[in-house]
């Protein structure tokens, strides 16, 4: 007996593992994941990492350019920009994750129901989804935030609700594709309840596009939270948030440009990372799309 005959070949990888393997080969996506992890650490360890109290003002250090004591400079009332950027990471990441969780929590079950049930229920849900999609995302979020009142929590609710129709539509489209497969027919034939079929047989098969959409939606939600805070409808001063920092910074652009550079750069870097990760996941789950 030869050695080759003794060593059994490794079993075939599951689609999920194959996707993860493909993802790890994509350097841009892995670098993006590293950046996101870095920001998450900053958010978690903000109290330990930030060199100053983000709310502490200093009238002797008003609008100081970046220097050894204040690496990113100071703002219009002498607060340390680096410390505020680090603490601002919390608001941005929280807004991204919580808003998208709201969208996913409502959008996925509603989309599942619409796609699986079909008929009048699907028609009703689809028309409501169309109506929500007809209102531009940020304008709807602004309107909701305006009526709910300005705060980070309400901004997250507004963004989450505004992004929900995208998840409903995506889930519904995926369910329509999957529900005609033979294994769903078989599951139905052996007497599984519709709820069980949706939960155990359809949902696991539509997860990949939902993961991709979730990643891209977090990027959009981070920009939307920054936009709402920029307009004064998100995180309220003096609490630090990248959007509200930019709102103040635009008034001092000629005398203290560093006030605008760092928060903007942080939004860009974090959003870029989520977009790169989303692109990487899309390619990993469906290499033909590339």
């Amino acid at each position, binding site marked *: 007996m030869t050695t080759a005959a003794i060593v059994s070949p490794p079993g075939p990888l599951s689609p999920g593992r194959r996707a993860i393997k493909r993802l790890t080969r994509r350097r841009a996506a892995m670098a993006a994941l590293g950046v996101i992890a870095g920001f998450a650490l900053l958010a978690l360890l903000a109290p330990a990492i930030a060199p100053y109290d983000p709310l502490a003002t200093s009238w002797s250090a008003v609008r100081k350019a970046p220097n050894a004591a204040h690496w990113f400079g100071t703002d219009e009332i002498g607060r340390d920009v680096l410390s505020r950027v680090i603490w601002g990471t919390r608001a941005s990441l929280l807004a991204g994750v919580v808003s998208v969780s709201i969208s996913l929590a409502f959008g996925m079950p509603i989309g599942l129901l619409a796609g699986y049930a079909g008929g009048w229920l699907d028609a009703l849900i689809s*028309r*409501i989804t*169309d*109506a*929500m999609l*007809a*209102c*531009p*995302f*940020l*304008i*709807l979020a*602004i*309107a*909701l*935030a*305006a*009526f*709910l009142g300005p705060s980070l929590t309400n901004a997250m609710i507004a963004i989450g609700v505004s992004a929900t129709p995208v998840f409903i539509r995506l889930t519904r489209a995926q369910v329509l594709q999957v529900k005609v497969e033979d294994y769903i027919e078989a599951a139905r034939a052996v007497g599984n309840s519709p709820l069980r079929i949706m939960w155990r047989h359809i949902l696991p098969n539509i997860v990949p596009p939902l993961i991709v959409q979730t990643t891209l939606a977090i*990027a959009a939600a981070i*920009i939307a939270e*920054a*936009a709402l805070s*920029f*307009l*004064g*409808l998100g995180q309220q001063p003096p609490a630090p948030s990248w959007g509200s920092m*930019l709102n103040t*910074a*635009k008034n001092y*652009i*000629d005398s203290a*440009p560093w006030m*605008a*550079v760092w*928060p*903007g750069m942080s*939004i*860009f870097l974090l*959003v*870029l990372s989520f*977009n*790169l990760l989303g*692109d990487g996941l899309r390619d990993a789950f469906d290499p033909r799309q590339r």
Partner: protein
Amino acid sequence: MVKFLVRRLATIAPTLFFVSILIFGLQQLLPGDPAMILAGEERDPTVIAHLHQKLHLDEPLPVRYLYWASGVLKGDLGESVRIQRPVLDLVAEKLPVTLELAFLAMLIALVVGITAGIVSAVARDTIWDYTANVLALWGLSTPNFWLGIMLILLFSVTLGWLPASGYVSPFVDLRANLAAMIMPAFVLGNSIAAVLMRHMRSAMLQVLGADYVRTARAKGLEERVVVLKHALRNALTPVITLGALEFGTLLSGAVLTEQVFTIPGFGKLIVDAVFNRDYAVVQGVVLCTATAYISLNLLADLAYFLVNPRLRDSQA
């Protein structure tokens, strides 16, 4: 054609109905008595009583909705509590400014996005393709309000070439108008150019692999003719249709861009209304935006139907 139009209109009617419910429903989010809040900070008892009567606040919710919807159908979007003028007049006054901004932004987006998409597809996996993809990713990831601030820093504060803010009507001074609008238009068009570039690239890649393109090449046609005459024509139609659907992004972006550059348009109207607690204006702006979006969607569908012979024949 008529059949197609009727079928599309039949789907639009319920959508508009739900849009109206959504926008009417916004008012119900206000805590407490809406009249107290809508009356503004003064809370004048006369105004509150007037609002109670005008908004039929003592009636049940469905009746209130019917009153509101019938008013909207007659063109009555309510009245601004702050400025004491009909909302429709305010919208009509601000709309041309935003439309000019949107038109210039779309022009920039189409020229940059389509050109970059073609170059990227034709030169697939070359430095041009990578550069175009990196720029598209940059466009999608840059918050436009930050880009606006950075451009003001460069072109207004540092170089002094362009005005940092303000608006001049093109009928008063076209040169000054363009000088004031070029930065906001670029900022607004930037992310749409990125989206169009990605769609154009994938549409071109699909078309360039088609049999008829291979045939055109086999006939010995110049590559320029193959790309621009044979491939581009077919790849462009869905991209232009998608461009029309980017209208929503355009309006969302306009809110922020107008805020950064202090342009007195539609976007600034809604933001000012939010801070003045002028809720009728907020509702009016959302309603007008949604109606415009649905109409544009319909026009895009019609355009696609008209230029696509296969779809036309299948519906005949």
